[in-house]
């Protein structure tokens, strides 16, 4: 028996005048399967909705077609109306007869409106209900990394009541945060003691991930710690592995004692019984890596500290100062006021080292001629690189990286902390060069994102909106390879053959797998091949 379809037209308060609604109502009533056609002037307002609910109940309509304005802002209203009338929200199809018909054509467009409604009805006829269900999720979070970002994330996650495991590759926690602490003026000892004392946080040092599988709410991660390997279950994974720096110097200069990195200078500044006091110090940055702001901040902080402690002459060679961070311009002015000399050069200065002095030749843009400076200490330019293991871990977790090798694809819809795979987040330096305030903002963003996902212990999601038919699937792995959200995996069906299975929580309903499946085994409710072709076939009838 033909499914009963109800059509609800809306003339938007008689404002749509180039569609003859009477004629439309008549013509549309003859479409097979249509049991009632109603015309209203304000379908999206209160009384329009009540009339719709009563009509659905009286005529016991099974599928609803709304021919009105764009679904962009109103679709959720009508889905709610269907649910209030006891129908599944998916049995709903729209025809946009206002923005895409009445407003963009002159003259009478009744013909086109009728055709758009026919397309919507042809699709509605094939729609199938999709239920929603609460999926239980594991409430534990794995934070990979041991630096400033990782420790802060773990602390705040435990504060909102989520049990966290902190996994650090080195033997001790927070190894390089010590310098960062002195660099930005806060003591990390209180932070370290708090994280050790928190019974909500389990710390695994000198441990690393060897394998990872599973999806949002149910990640299984194998961790090797000191010889033995064990696999643990987590609901979400937060990567906070930070970055590493490499001196951008010719190899023979690297060994010279007078050429140091920013970190080494930091340690020299802190160590009270340092015997040598460099008279002149040279800084250099922004020549071979023009996309990082951390070298500028490190230089400004260290220059001020060195000026204050040793009162030495300081020369900074750079192409452009990256001051697009909070407070960076203030630091730059402070440094200039207390006598630091900034030299802007287009080309990279030539460095020669010998008998305890480092010679820097550079052509300053404003002076216009070559300046040669011999200084006791040169803080060389450093390249910001992703920390080791980034490539390995991203292939283990099957996630994408950006063009410079850091985590998180450069897609703007993922910012600030998400990855294209639900349940995996990135925090801090591991996703690009972030200064301290942006790292702290990242930490708070990831805490609320994980809190939303896991705090209630379950996630409401649609059941089998995208489904693989086990009979038709030949396990050719195409869908598993093309899924951008890595939401499909091979699963053994009741002891028999292995077939692909879509994980409802991880699926973002984009349909790429349904289009690529060579055996047409994947149905995507709402946009199945039949439903799309039904709309295409309405052209022939016109």
């Amino acid at each position: 028996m033909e499914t009963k379809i109800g059509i609800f037209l809306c003339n938007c308060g008689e404002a749509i005048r180039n569609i003859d609604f009477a004629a439309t109502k008549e013509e549309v009533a003859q479409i097979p399967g249509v049991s009632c056609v109603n015309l209203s002037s304000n379908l999206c307002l209160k009384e329009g909705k009540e009339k719709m609910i009563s009509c659905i109940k009286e005529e016991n309509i099974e599928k609803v077609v709304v021919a009105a304005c764009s679904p962009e802002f109103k679709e959720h209203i009508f889905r709610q109306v269907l649910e209030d009338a006891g129908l599944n929200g998916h049995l709903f199809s729209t025809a946009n007869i206002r923005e895409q018909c009445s407003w963009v054509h002159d003259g009478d467009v009744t013909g086109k409106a009728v055709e758009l409604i026919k397309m919507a009805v042809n699709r509605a006829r094939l729609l199938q209900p999709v239920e929603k269900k609460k999926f239980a999720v594991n409430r534990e979070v794995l934070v990979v990394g041991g630096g400033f970002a990782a420790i802060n994330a773990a602390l705040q996650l435990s504060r909102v009541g989520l049990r966290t495991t902190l996994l650090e590759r080195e033997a001790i926690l927070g190894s390089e945060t010590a310098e960062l602490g002195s660099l930005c003026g806060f003591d990390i000892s209180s932070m370290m003691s708090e994280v050790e004392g928190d019974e909500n946080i389990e710390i695994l040092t000198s441990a690393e991930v060897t394998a990872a599988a599973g999806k949002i709410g149910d990640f299984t991660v194998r961790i090797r710690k000191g010889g033995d390997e064990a696999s643990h279950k987590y609901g979400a994974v937060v990567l906070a592995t930070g970055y590493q720096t490499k001196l951008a110097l010719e190899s023979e200069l690297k060994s010279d004692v007078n050429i140091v990195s920013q970190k080494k200078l930091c340690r020299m500044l802190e160590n009270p019984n340092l015997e040598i006091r460099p008279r002149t110090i040279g800084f250099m940055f922004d020549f071979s890596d023009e996309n990082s702001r951390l070298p500028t901040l490190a230089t400004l902080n260290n220059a001020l500290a060195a000026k204050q402690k040793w009162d030495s002459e300081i020369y900074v060679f750079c192409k452009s100062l990256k001051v697009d961070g909070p407070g960076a311009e203030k630091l730059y002015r402070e440094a200039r006021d207390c006598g630091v000399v900034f030299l802007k050069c287009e080309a990279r200065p030539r460095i020669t080292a010998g008998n305890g002095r480092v010679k820097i030749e550079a052509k300053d843009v404003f002076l216009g001629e070559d300046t040669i400076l011999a200084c006791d200490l040169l803080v060389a330019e450093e390249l910001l690189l992703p920390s080791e293991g980034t490539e390995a871990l991203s292939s283990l977790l099957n996630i994408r990286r950006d063009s410079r090798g850091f985590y998180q694809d450069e897609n703007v819809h993922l910012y600030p902390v998400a990855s294209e795979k639900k349940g995996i987040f990135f925090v801090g330096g591991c996703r690009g060069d972030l200064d301290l305030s942006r790292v702290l903002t990242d930490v708070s963003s990831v805490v609320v994102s994980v809190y939303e996902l896991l705090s209630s212990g379950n996630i409401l999601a649609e059941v089998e909106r995208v489904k693989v038919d086990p009979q038709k699937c030949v396990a050719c792995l195409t869908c598993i390879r093309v899924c951008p959200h890595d939401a499909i995996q091979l699963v053994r069906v009741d002891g028999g053959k292995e077939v692909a299975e879509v994980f409802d929580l991880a699926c973002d309903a984009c349909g790429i797998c349904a289009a690529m499946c060579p055996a047409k085994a994947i149905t995507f409710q709402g946009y199945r091949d039949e439903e799309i072709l039904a709309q295409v076939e309405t052209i022939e009838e016109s």
Partner: protein
Amino acid sequence: MESKNVLVVGSGISGVASALELANAGVNVYLIEKEAVVGGHSASFCCKATDVCSRCSACVVPDKIREAVINPRIRLLTNSTIKKLSGDLGNFRVEITQQPRYIDVEKCIACGLCTEVCPADPKAVYPPTVEATPFCYILDEALCLRFKGEKCDICRENCPTRAIEFELKPKEQELSVGALIVATGFDVFDAKEKGSLGYGRYPNVLTGLDLEQIFGREGYLRLSINGKEPRNIAFIQCVGSRDEDHGYCSQVCCKYAMKLAGLIKYQSLDTKVTIFYIDLQTAGKGFAQFYEEYKESIRFVRGVPVEILQTASGDLEVRFEDISQGKVCRDTFDLVVLSVGITPGKNSWGLARILGINLADDGFFDTKDSLSSNETNVDGIFLAGTCQGPKDIPDSVAHGIAAASKTIQALGGVASQRRGNHRGH
């Protein structure tokens, strides 16, 4: 439990981002906005994609606004400002005045009949800008004949959904909320203050914001005086940033200038583009590729010009110091774009007095200590977005989400103190 509501002041991209995160975490949100439409400045920014997306995040704004408008837990109050605040974290009482909006947002279906019938010239009731949400028509008191004493009632009679109402007084209402997030955004630097650059006097001197809106509305660039395509464009950086009375870098101007320059070069390759800069800010996620690609095709000149004069033929003569030769020289362009920066909102001083929060020396709202960028000196009032300091769209979204996170932690803390155990389980 009243502490489960939060008031977000300002519906720019960071206010909307905070409201969305709060709503998704189960908190009811009042989102108040002093203008008639949601979105703030960033809603009018154009997409600067060439054949590849240039990562400017302008297209994230309409998505987030749409999500916020249809979210059931977010109640939107436009034309509203805060009059008084009392109470503390967990139970604030906020008095809101809502200026009359003669066209009811719920009822207006943007059919356009009222504009057709309105007798006033220029029309007193008109559609909002295209990207406006809610897309509800606006009745302008200054132009409407009825507010000039005439007995005109034509639009109210013709409105099919009775959405127009005249006898409306500013509405007062008191909300009780657990916490506040201030996301009042920024003001664009008024380029007229730099008189020597001739903005407002010469038609071909535009600001970055004008260029964004031209590309947003028309999609291509035409000179206003002769409608032709500009052949030689100059961008001048750091207009209203990094100078005597703006001791900060606005962070966004180098990025939007280079991306607009990339779009112009993509639309017509032989257009010459010059960028005058102090320090080129090319850091940030997703910028490396872009900078590599356009490093050669755009001419970068170090040093910011001080004066622009319009020649007889309408071209603009820019006087700047050419450092390589070490002397002042002139260059003519047919279009000059001033990359204006971010300045603190004019009425942030008023809001600071009402809420009792401090202003930093550069005019933005101050934070409790240098490490936390969301907390203010008042517990329970948090900052989000550019009202705390210059940020681009991705940073504003992140800052908004962080503010929501701190609010939830603060509210969580409050709830648990009530239940007597100090840990926020």
